[in-house]
């Protein structure tokens, strides 16, 4: 058991004296997560909203498909996107393989079903008096839709945080599409995999602590904003 506590102490030391290589993995992770989250939310919120707000034939089928996609294994996404963006694939000419943009495509595919499904559920779960109330106040069309979105903002925040959790924690897509290239596409999670494989337990743990700290900071910021918004 000693090597765990020793590793932890060493890890703290490593974080405090962060070398450039580790720092680069952190920067790549932040860049990649920001890109993936932006695209996921930009696509997922409108799609999920439409799915929850509108009634159309075949809606249950779409819901079932989206729910199934929630369980997509990361390596399957990695494999599929790889097939498309590798040199021989249809998108081979864009130089996406082993780039942050290529990794973001995979992560977006991974997280999109989460945002779509949770947004749709949030909109469907709104009190059915809401629309009637908005109508009695004279709202319709876009105004009504925007107000419904506003009413479900806390549930949408949960959707975004869940997607964030999935994106920041995954290894498969980053490894397969990014290639774990030092200085370029090495993220915190792929670095942890590598260091643990090499037996550098303390460095892996240091990276893990950094990852947790990032999530904690984000959550703390959001809960602060939320408390401000409530008051």
């Amino acid at each position, binding site marked *: 058991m000693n090597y765990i506590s020793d590793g932890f102490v060493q890890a703290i030391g490593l974080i405090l004296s962060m070398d450039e290589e580790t720092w680069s993995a952190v920067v790549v992770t932040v860049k990649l997560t920001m890109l993936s989250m932006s695209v996921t939310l930009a696509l997922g919120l409108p799609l999920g909203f439409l799915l929850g707000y509108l009634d159309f034939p075949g809606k249950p089928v779409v819901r079932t498909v989206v729910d199934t996609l929630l369980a997509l294994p990361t390596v399957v996404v990695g494999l599929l996107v790889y097939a498309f963006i590798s040199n021989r694939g249809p998108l081979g000419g864009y130089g996406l393989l082993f780039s942050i943009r290529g990794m973001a495509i995979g992560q977006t595919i991974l997280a999109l079903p989460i945002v779509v499904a949770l947004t749709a559920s949030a909109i469907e779960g709104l*009190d059915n*008096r*809401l629309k*009637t*109330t908005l*109508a*009695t*106040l*004279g*709202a*319709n069309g876009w*105004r009504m839709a925007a*107000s419904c979105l*506003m*009413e479900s*903002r*806390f549930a949408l925040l949960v959707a975004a945080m869940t997607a964030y959790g999935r994106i920041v924690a995954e290894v498969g897509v980053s490894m397969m599409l990014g290639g774990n290239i030092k200085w370029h596409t090495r993220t915190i999670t792929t670095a942890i995999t590598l260091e643990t494989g090499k037996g550098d337990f303390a460095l892996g743990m240091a990276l893990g602590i950094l990852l947790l700290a990032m999530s904690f900071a984000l959550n703390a910021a959001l809960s602060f904003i939320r408390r401000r918004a*409530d*008051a």
Partner: protein
Amino acid sequence: MTEVRNVFSLRNLTHSYGRHPTLDIASLDIPEGGVVGLIGPNGSGKSTLLKVLGCLLARRSGELLYGGVSVDGRERAVRREVTLLLQEPYLMRRSVYANIAYGLKLRGIASSEIASRVSDSLARVGMAADSFARRPWFRLSGGEVQRVSLAVRLALRPKVLLLDEPTANVDETSAARIKEAAWHAWNDWGTTIVVATHDLVWLYEVATKIVSLYRGRAISDGAENLVQGDWVRAGDRAILALRGQTIEATLPGGDQPLVCAALNPSSIAVSRERPASRADHNVLSGTLTQMSIERATGDILGVVDCDGVFLRARFPLSSAHDLNLYPGLAVHLSFPVSTLTFL
């Protein structure tokens, strides 16, 4: 003398959620500047009618005129002038201020004007803007939610205010504030008010017209008494047994179910002495429990408890005076067998 205009006119209007019609109204007018009461048992279609008037539900057939013109194609415009306080009010997950400001922003009203309307509306429902405007939606009691919801509508200065059982689920203070606020809206702005309620005492005080709904049908006058129970056939009469006495009614034609008979309060005579029995009259004894003045007619409405069946009788102020009627008094009611009509 100016002609009374109708804000709403309904002709052969029907609505249904499924197969059975929830509304089937042959003719109904809501006069401008009036206070119209909607009464009727639960499920009789009061809420549905209010939603149809508010252009929140589409009717199935018939005509609905707003200001003399069909609402078809101008539902949005009508919704800007007509607003409904839902039976179960809902506040958006925002502050009280933001809830009240919502409809005003929609109408492009300047923010300084919004601020003053918010305080004014809150004051009208008896809430101080200082302590309530900034409150979030979840820090309000049930009665306060209802009052804020009314303030939200008052801020819009509606032409027509539709109220769906506004005092049903609130404490006495809130109920009193709500009634006052509705009255002031009518008095200050000439707002036409249509209110569904079970509070008949209040209605008789303020209503200029009372409409009874029964199973979706409007019975304009005289259905304030609905005599429901196990009516049984006996010869050419239907008989309802109360504890110690009976009510008789002329049997309706056809195979109409004997469930509920309407009895016009104006056809009931009240007396201190028991009138002589007549074959074609019911004579009941009971206790006068309530008396109120009816704004629409200036007459007195007395509520008489006849073995648990509460009947309303209408009589002029002079006879209340001559007979020296007061609540608690034992009285006799008499009305023709033929005035009961089965619905």
